[in-house]
């Protein structure tokens, strides 16, 4: 009963699994994971961020960031533009309209939980 849900990446527990309900305020599991939430939040504040900037900002590894960024890309929450700086490939990420909507919805969900407890 008292146990909280732990995400697959083993990051800190966030909300109990039992709260993941269906409906208008259903929790978006895709951005609920801590690193993916970080990517989406960072891109909400900064129009474009490179892979290295995100890595530095979120203090994570290449592999971890790559996996989670790809999941967000597949969901069309972020868009990635591949360019070259000289001979070095560079990935530049930005938040899509559906990614921003997902973050807004997630924020509303968290605020609703806080309000419900008051």
């Amino acid at each position, binding site marked *: 009963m008292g146990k909280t849900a732990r995400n697959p990446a083993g990051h800190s527990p966030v*909300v109990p699994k039992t709260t993941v309900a269906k409906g208008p305020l259903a929790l978006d599991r895709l951005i609920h994971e801590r690193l993916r939430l*970080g990517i989406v*939040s*960072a891109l*909400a504040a*900064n129009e474009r961020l490179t892979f290295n*900037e995100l890595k530095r900002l979120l203090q994570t590894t290449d592999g971890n960031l790559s996996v989670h960024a790809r999941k967000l890309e597949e969901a069309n929450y972020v868009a990635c533009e591949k360019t070259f700086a000289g001979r070095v490939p560079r990935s530049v990420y930005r938040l899509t309209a559906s990614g921003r909507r997902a973050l807004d919805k997630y924020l509303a969900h968290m605020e609703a939980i*806080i309000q419900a407890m008051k």
Partner: protein
Amino acid sequence: MMPRLHEHAAENLQFIRETMARAANFTAVPGLGGVAMGVLALAATIVAGPPRATSAWLGVWLATAGLAAATGFIAILWKARRHHLPIRGPVVRRFALALVPALVVGIVLTAVFVRHGLFAQLPGCWLLCYGAAISSGGAFSVRPVPFMGAAFMVLGALAFVAPTEWGHFFMAVGFGALHISFGIVIARNYGG
């Protein structure tokens, strides 16, 4: 269980807020541009020499300031273009709004000091005002920038208490060496 749910929601909101605040930095601050500005300042120090109450001495530094500002601006545009960074929007606006007031104070004080013949006090005034501008703007930029601003301010304060004939040394150390050394750090660690 319910209080924990509330705590976790608050913790998530806090995480989002902190991540957004960290991400909303002006990262197009030019390291190589800073190096170029430093080289210009060293050249100006050699040409202008110790502070003198002449229009030639003032003219050299004002011309250098204009040239350095243009260099810095072009370097920002170049870096932003190269890294696909925004040069408009709230992040840049916040950086500029933090940077500009102390620069305006510096311009006004320069006019006042010149009017009263306080040429020897100008190095301290310029270093302090520029340092204040960089410190403020640096709060919204990459980590070395506010430290560079603080170093300028320390030099400015020292310039006011040191013998006035040392003014050009402070200018060389501040606008020259500090720009070059922090420029190299920024260029190496923050993409140019």
